[in-house]
């Protein structure tokens, strides 16, 4: 597993203009961490395919999306979020 360049933390629902911009500005060696309303991207089936995708478990569970996570999405808890934010070279909170 190569290092994550930029970790994009997205808490906006897929219909929010900032969500679209976040997805547009990701590189293949970046990571996407879905938190808050951002986890709804798991429901729309429009996940990016070129990038590693993570989703914050408590937010996934709160929204009833626990069984939607495909193999391409890794569930993380807050400890995992801390680790990811340090592993990545930079973090952008959208």
């Amino acid at each position, binding site marked *: 597993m190569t290092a994550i360049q930029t970790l994009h933390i997205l808490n*906006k*629902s897929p219909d929010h203009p900032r969500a679209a911009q976040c997805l547009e500005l990701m590189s293949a060696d970046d990571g996407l961490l879905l938190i*808050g309303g*951002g986890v709804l991207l798991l429901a729309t089936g429009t996940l990016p395919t070129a990038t590693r995708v993570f989703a*914050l478990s408590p937010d996934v569970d709160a929204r009833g999306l626990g069984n939607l996570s495909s193999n391409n999405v890794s569930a993380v*808890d807050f*400890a995992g*979020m801390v680790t990811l934010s340090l592993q990545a070279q930079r973090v952008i*909170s959208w």
Partner: protein
Amino acid sequence: MAETASESFTLVITGAPYSSQAPQTALGFAQAAVNAGHRIDRVFLYGDGVHLASALCAPPSDETHWPEEWSRFLVDHSIPGVACIASALRRGLVNETEQKRYELPAANVRVPFEIAGLGEWVEGQIKSTRTLYFHAGD
């Protein structure tokens, strides 16, 4: 065996409690960071986030009291909590110093939050390994 290097964070909260999820997510992150042995240099409240420092919130008893939870966490771990002065004055968050200066009828900032300028945010950004932002969602 090498120890895991301890890193440090500045957390910026721009979403208000009971309006956004930002303070809740930030607290989950902060607790996990401390549990992992990292340091939180500073929590900086900006924009609507300053409402987290209110001493006057009285949410229903079956809802989480986010300002209280945050205050306790900051005190327990001796972490400075700072509300941006420009954001706070516009939004009606004042400590006793500001109350006197602007001749206001009361003060409403909760212990241990302090009021200071954006310089604290700049300093945090320089000093900490990572600066993370917790915004309102929608």
